[in-house]
């Protein structure tokens, strides 16, 4: 306990403020300018018209061709997917003697029938065109890719495109 009387407590006096308070906005402006430039560089009016299958790293490429809308065959490390639906496990595919992947073929034929039926209803010519995009993990081997491409070709999907990530 100090023996100072209460009346003598030292109050730190703040300096009197002037009427108009000004914020220091320069650093914030700098940050915004940098952000704007960065975002303008990444600006893409078109957006991604196809979605990437999860759990896979697409290979990098210098290709500039814009992706088309098509059904997607996804090849992750564990699963083979058609439009996001798992079709079969990758394990064991490359050990089979038969190059055609039965489950994938059935699924693609089902997809083809649906597309053809819907295309037959209208007159706009939106029927089956045999477009398919293959999204494969960068570490898969050619043996697997070959079997998948062969199966797609057998099912009538002859216009294949390999989706890649632009560098």
């Amino acid at each position, binding site marked *: 306990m100090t023996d100072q009387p209460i009346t003598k407590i030292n109050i730190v006096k703040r300096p009197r403020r002037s009427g108009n308070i000004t914020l220091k906005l320069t650093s914030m402006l700098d940050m915004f300018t940098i952000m704007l430039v960065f975002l303008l560089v990444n600006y893409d009016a078109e957006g991604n018209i196809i979605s990437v299958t999860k759990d896979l790293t697409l*290979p990098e490429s210098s*290709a500039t*061709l814009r992706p088309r809308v098509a059904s997607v065959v996804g090849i992750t490390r564990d699963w083979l997917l058609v439009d996001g639906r798992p079709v079969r496990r990758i394990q064991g595919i490359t050990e089979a003697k038969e190059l055609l992947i039965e489950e994938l073929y059935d699924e693609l034929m089902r997809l083809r029938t649906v597309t053809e039926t819907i295309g037959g209803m209208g007159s706009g010519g939106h029927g089956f065109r045999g477009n398919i995009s293959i999204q494969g993990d960068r570490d898969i081997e050619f043996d697997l890719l070959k079997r998948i491409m062969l199966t797609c070709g057998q099912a009538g999907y002859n*216009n294949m*495109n*390999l989706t890649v990530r632009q560098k």
Partner: protein
Amino acid sequence: MNLQKTLGRTMRHRSSDAELTITPIMNCFLIMVPFLLLTASFVRLAMHDLSLPSLERKPATAQVSQSTPVVLNFLYIRETGFELRSPELTFPALPKRGTAFDWGSLATQLQRIRTRYPESDEIIIAPVNSINYQTIITVMDHCRENGFSNISISG
């Protein structure tokens, strides 16, 4: 002679913190930043086109093959390196340099085919089973950059 007076200016004491009116710019930025954040795409996708000949497209491809003679260029990708085969041209095999493929020599060989057959842009890539997908895509990139836009893959 006093320069300031000659120029018609008078020295005036400026206050140390002159302020710009940056509020409108701030408003503008605040609107633009969320807008651009929404439209920005951080992963840009592209594709490599592979078209196999199909029954419906046969007449079109037949016409093309009539006008230009088909030159079958094969590029084999092996675990040990590349080997390029083209009619009337012989190339030495390109072994790997350490662990990396010899991309520079491949580009030189591809350019030689292009100068020999300027009208042909077809190449068939034939990798062995153990080659990984990224390598195939990079080979396709190199072929496209050297003028071979019509790429096929053969098992």
